[in-house]
């Protein structure tokens, strides 16, 4: 089976150590996590992990079931590239002088649909949201002007499906008739 890019999404409780429990599942199978993001979700007090991996679909499917098995995970699912809308965020720090030699940098920034996040006395920060390859394309173009710092965020993604797994989680929580420990 061919390795492909997948995005794994998990809706979870917000508890200490859950990130570790999730990563253990990947470590056990020696799967490299390309990026992992934890954030709030559309539901109050429900968190959302977004994990980017390149693996075979069979293995990703098994991993997702093992994630969902964790006590504090509500639901987990995986998506192929064309099943999600995804973005990453890149920041590029350049010396302010790079702007003083003509309008080249400004033109590049415009062409790449990036923007200046801040322009300070000594440095500027350019922000680019998009696919990883777009972030690297901009990197290559800015390189001659001297990139002092570069950072790329983890992938965030929402599914293209009309009903994502978030809807299932919401229904689960609503249909919840069990008593809880307060």
């Amino acid at each position, binding site marked *: 089976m061919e390795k492909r890019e997948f995005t794994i999404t998990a809706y979870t409780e917000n508890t200490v150590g859950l990130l*570790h429990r999730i990563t253990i599942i990947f470590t056990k199978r020696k799967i490299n996590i390309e990026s992992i993001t934890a954030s709030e979700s559309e539901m109050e007090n429900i968190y959302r992990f977004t994990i980017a991996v390149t693996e075979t679909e069979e293995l990703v499917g098994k991993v997702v079931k093992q994630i969902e098995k964790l006590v504090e995970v509500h639901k987990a699912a995986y998506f192929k590239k064309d099943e999600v809308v995804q973005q990453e965020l890149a920041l590029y720090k350049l010396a302010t002088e790079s702007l003083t030699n003509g309008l080249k940098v400004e033109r590049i920034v415009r062409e790449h649909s990036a923007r200046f996040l801040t322009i300070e006395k000594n440095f500027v920060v350019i922000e680019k949201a998009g696919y990883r390859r777009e972030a690297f394309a901009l990197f290559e173009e800015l390189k001659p002007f001297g990139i002092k710092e570069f950072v790329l965020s983890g992938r965030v993604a929402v599914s293209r499906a009309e009903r994502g797994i978030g809807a299932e989680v919401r229904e689960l929580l609503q249909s919840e008739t069990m008593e*809880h420990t307060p």
Partner: protein
Amino acid sequence: MSTIEAPTKTEMNSTTVTERVTGANAVVRILLEEGVDLVFGYPGGAIMPVYDSLYDYQQQIHHVLARHEQGATHAAQGYARASGKVGVCLATSGPGATNLITGLADAQIDSTPMVCITGQVPSGLLGSDAFQETDVIGISMPVTKWNTQVTRAEEIPEALAKAFYIAKSGRPGPVLVDITKDAQFQEFDFSYTKCTGLRSYVPVPKLDPTKVEQAAELINNAERPFILFGQGVILGNAEAEFKTFIEKTGIPSAWTIMGLSALETDHPLNVGMLGMHGNYGPNLLTNECDVLIAIGMRFDDRVTGNLSKYAKQAKVIHLEIDPAEIDKNVKTDVAVLGDCKESLTALIEKVKPNSHKEWLQRFRDCDAMEHEKVIQGELHPTDEKLSMGEVIRIINEKTNGDAILVTDVGQHQMVACRYTKFNQSKSNITSGGLGTMGFGLPAGLGAALGAPDRTVVAVIGDGGLQMTIQEFATIYQTRANVKVLLLNNEFLGMVRQWQQLFFDKRYSATEMINPDFQTIAKGYYIPTNKVTEREKLDDAITEFINHDGAYFLEVMVGKENNVFPMVPSGCGVAEIRLE
């Protein structure tokens, strides 16, 4: 007047009434609320407040002082599996906590409900490499079903309520609650409510009737159906339903070593053991059946051998409580998710009565072949050296199949599981998934305490015995009525067997120059005997079984005997070797 007093009494008994107590006292009260009357453990600095509180409850909670925390965990496992209750362990921080890891891993892979409570350094010192500080939450995470750290007393009730609930619900497993010492000392307003559900956790998936229909259809149309059953039948208390199901359908049924004893040995549809050292028929015919029905088992590699040569011709039905087990190792055609007590009950309704006499006869023909080539010689050896099998045969004669068998890991484990006769469930306690040497002695004492009315025989090899031999002291101190049988071949026998067969007889580090086990057992005040000759074996075993109290019997067996049949690693199940 009584009408006025009555409500007050009810209120007094209610668990929601608050009372000001220390965290340590709350821990002990919660154990009582959860019906715990026996805990295994070892005290130390960071858990001392809990031990101090236990001192006031000695009438209600009996504490078993193991001689090593690993021993405490295996004893708790033996207790849990013999009694069906949750095993509870207490340990201190640092080395106390790290010594729990092997037992946690064993309980995790064999789905044994266990709650471990560890002391931790005071919360202000967390992360500072304080004396006896270890990150037990991080270390135990891969080997627990759930764990949590408590740093304030008021968090204790919720943490422990969840711990007991998670340990025993759904597919059971071990949990660990780490409590800082300051939280144990802290006073708070205590009240306790048992946990009955968590919103993110589905312990038992809902049974899908369409899956039951599909499974029934496959079963009803099968010509050569074959059942593989595992511990799920025992954990789900579904032995009766299982038996009704196989008797109605007439399907030959084979067990994994974790499923052993769920169906009595002499049942006409019990065709024996699966896996690497299992019986000939079940392995060979796995690759000839047309429908394979797996019930509460997880297709461990020791059962399947090489997966690319495993049951490729068969449609596979998998009755399983844990969705993550579906398609993990063997691709399933129909997955029936749910508690097998429920799914079997539903399935019994839908299946047609049947018998598969000719197909069953195939298993019996294989048995005859295995009997001639392996079993006869193992149970009735003609050479001078004693065999492990003949010892087990004589034990069967004395116990009639009513004993609990506890084993360690290795050749003796395979022989004991292959040949011990069972009449009732929850009678086989072994380290299946993890293969933990050192499991047998502490698990045996735990089983004896968990099932005090039954005869408990712990069969152990000379390697494994020495890994937890200190637990003889616990046996002596608790007066646990466990019969310890040492099958001594002065070798790490299973590894030696592999070296003989697959490593050109290069016996690297497997020969054991042993101590005098008789003197050691005597040093622990355990009655002992040693047998080296066949003539003395029968009498010695009679004395061993009938002795009122713990007993240590050592039998010297053939040094270089092998366990057969065998599916060599990397081979398919049908490539099973009889010699």
